[in-house]
């Protein structure tokens, strides 16, 4: 209805139009806030009264207010050049409606992320890390990776790369609410629509066929200057730029017509929280015949398990008795499926001795057994794994970030870090565009983001996919090759250093740095 009214306002002079529009909005805002109170009540920050109506276009509409979407909003809100932007966030998840209360005494949620030093520094730059630190989080500075054949293992230490930590394990809900808290500190003009996207339209034409030159939102849309979004609750809105951060099954990606490439791994991941009798300070990953099992510290004697296995197995492991599951986990992290690594593996010292000076023996870094799990501390969840990459991340007025653009094997916990990398890169590129007065939906600007992130994401995806493939085959000779590769990674310290650096989020290729 707002639109109809707006179209009738034909400005003879733009200034008058602006004034009348402002008045119109403050009236309308009062009405809207009563009528739509149920569907879009809280979370309104100061000064967005003028955005309550449908007509005023937003600068950016972020579809999907998960961790990656909120990271973008947070970065925009805290960057001098972008903090003035008006942003709509479209998400029907309850986490955005009422901020969950996170209690320290609750056992940790099984949904956790391993954030890399690069992600941590992004969070610090935006000021969101201080909120993460108020909650449970666990830094780790050591990681042991080994395989079931008992032939190879490697240990990574943050000190090898002159870093304090290799990463930090944080519950997703903590990351999410920290970003939200940080945004609420600012007077960022955001409005949250608790709804789902149903349609998105872009008028491709920017040609000269113009009959109507009024400065109305409709006319701008008609000439391709705005995208129009319709929501399941009947609302519609306009934005100069639509950001799809709506996950692997992205609606934005589908509506924009971006094609994807990818495949399903015939693997599921089972995740849960477990408890030890002592605190765990390291990250552990063991490659088993069906896939890796990872044990990540999450603080307070708790650890997180990410166990990759066949879909049939996963339903068994999910439903088996808790005691049996704990036994199975301990088995998988210890003698299950194969022997321990033998530190005196014949030839292991000799295998690389010919490398002479390049060999660094980490003498005291002998093989260790991860701390025993004593108890299951959360429900078990299973989800299928897949690899998917959008062929394009950007077109005019539409851009994808995070899982909407790429999903990876959860090996090494790189997925969300790639997403955070996208969010911060996009925010930076939008700021660069604003610095030179560009229309932020301009395709040339968005393609700059695409070019930058595609390379970073595809490289990581290829590496992880390669790892996954290397371990999905149980074949004698290959096992030995794999073990040799492990030994190589362990003993040749420059290579090891670059692998850690890369996994920590530094944008350099492991072998070509």
């Amino acid at each position: 209805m707002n639109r109809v009214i707006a179209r009738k306002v034909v400005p003879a002079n733009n200034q008058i139009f602006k004034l009348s529009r402002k008045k119109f909005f403050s009236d309308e805002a009062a009405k809207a806030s009563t009528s739509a109170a149920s569907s879009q009540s809280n979370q309104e920050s100061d000064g967005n009264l003028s955005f309550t109506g449908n007509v005023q276009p937003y600068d950016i509409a972020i579809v999907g207010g998960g961790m990656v979407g909120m990271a973008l909003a947070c970065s925009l809100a805290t960057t001098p050049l972008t903090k003035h932007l008006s942003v709509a966030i479209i998400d029907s998840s309850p986490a955005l409606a009422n901020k969950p209360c996170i209690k320290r005494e609750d056992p940790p949620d099984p949904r956790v992320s391993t954030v890399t030093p690069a992600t941590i520094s992004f969070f610090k730059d935006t000021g969101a890390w201080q909120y993460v630190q108020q909650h449970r989080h666990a830094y780790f500075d050591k990681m042991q990776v080994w395989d079931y054949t008992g032939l190879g293992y490697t240990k990574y230490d943050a000190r090898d790369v002159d870093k304090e930590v290799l990463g930090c394990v944080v519950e997703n809900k903590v990351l999410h609410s920290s970003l939200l808290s940080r945004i609420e500190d600012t007077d960022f003009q955001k409005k949250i629509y608790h709804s789902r996207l149903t349609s998105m339209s872009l008028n491709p034409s920017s040609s000269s066929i113009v009959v109507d030159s009024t400065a109305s939102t409709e006319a701008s849309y008609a000439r391709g200057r705005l995208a129009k979004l319709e929501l399941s609750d009947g609302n519609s809105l306009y934005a100069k730029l639509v950001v799809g951060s709506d996950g692997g099954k992205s609606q934005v990606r589908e509506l924009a017509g971006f094609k994807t490439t990818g495949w399903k791994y015939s693997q599921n991941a089972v995740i849960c929280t477990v408890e030890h009798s002592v605190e765990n300070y390291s990250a552990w990953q063991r490659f088993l015949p069906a896939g890796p099992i990872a044990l990540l510290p999450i603080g307070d004697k708790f650890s997180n398990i990410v166990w990759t296995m066949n879909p049939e197995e996963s339903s068994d492991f999910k439903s088996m008795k808790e005691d049996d599951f704990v036994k199975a986990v301990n088995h998988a992290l210890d003698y299950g499926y194969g022997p321990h690594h033998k530190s005196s593996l014949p030839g292991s010292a000799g295998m690389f001795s010919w490398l002479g000076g390049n060999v660094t023996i980490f003498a005291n870094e002998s093989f260790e057994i991860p701390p025993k799990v004593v108890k299951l501390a959360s429900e078990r969840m299973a989800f299928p794994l897949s690899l998917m990459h959008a062929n394009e991340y950007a077109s005019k007025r539409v851009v994808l970030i995070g899982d909407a653009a790429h999903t990876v094997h959860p090996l090494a916990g790189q997925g969300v870090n790639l997403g955070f990398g996208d969010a911060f890169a996009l925010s930076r590129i939008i700021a660069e565009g604003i610095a030179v007065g560009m229309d932020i939906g301009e395709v040339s600007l968005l393609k700059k983001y695409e070019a930058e992130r595609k390379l970073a994401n595809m490289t990581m995806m290829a590496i992880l996919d390669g790892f996954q493939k290397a371990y999905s085959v149980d074949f004698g000779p290959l096992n030995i090759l794999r073990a040799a590769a492990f030994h190589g990674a362990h003993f040749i310290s420059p290579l090891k250093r670059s692998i850690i650096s890369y996994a920590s989020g530094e944008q350099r290729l492991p072998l070509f740095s």
Partner: protein
Amino acid sequence: MALKLLSKLRNQNLQITRNRNHHRLVDAARFFSEQPVSNLSTPDDSKFIIKNKQQTTTSSLKQHELAKFAAISDTWWDSEGPFKPLHNMNPTRLAFIRSTLCRHFSKDPNCARPFEGLKIVDVGCGGGILSEPLARMGATVTGVDAVEKNINVARLHADLDPETSTIEYCCTTAEKLVEEQRKFDAVIALEVIEHVAAPAEFCKSLAALAYPGGATVISTINRSMRAYATAIVAAEYLLNWLPKGTHQWSSFLTPEELVLILQRASINVKEMAGFVYSPLTGRWSLSDDISVNFIAYGTKDGQ
């Protein structure tokens, strides 16, 4: 679909122009914006012709340069169209303008609208591809161009965004503005001077438009062998970036010549930078290399 239509339109326009101007091979775009001189305009611009007749005596523009670009004015905002190189180069030009003007007027470069409160004239605004970003950066912009079609395109485009709808577009020339005694904090003429008949006169007009102590930014192409090779041979003939005949090498100015004629117009050049194109990334960047495209910032003498 719309794109196809557009290119069809463009082709037709080109054909018409070709028939009209036998002396030109393919007469097309002012890849860059410009200033009219006199009365040889396209027949469909009757108003424009009248206007120009009145100002024949004072204008510094070249006749045929106008016809070139009226033909493709519709495509100004098609970032894949004939103005693509200009769209490509635009962020780099604006980065230079932003940093020099922020320094000149002591504005905060970390603010989204640093030019708030500054009156800027964009001489030879074309379709407004420089005027709009300047307006988004907060400036009160006046865009002038001698070709009425350009002004129409620019106005229609700018009106669709409240941030740019404040731009004042006029189909006029720098000389005419001087007659009207208009004054601005900053005078910008990018890729214009190589298309005017009397660059020295043109610079005097630019100087007259600036307040004492105001800023001027001018960009153009160097009259160097490399410029000949890249801006004409490569850009027009090999890469087809620019319509053939867009530039005439002999009317290019060297940086030294530009500094000199600006000095005579009481503008002191304070800073100069070159634009270099990287074929690998397809992007332009600022550099010290002023051998092809260059941009100069100067200040007008105090009193």
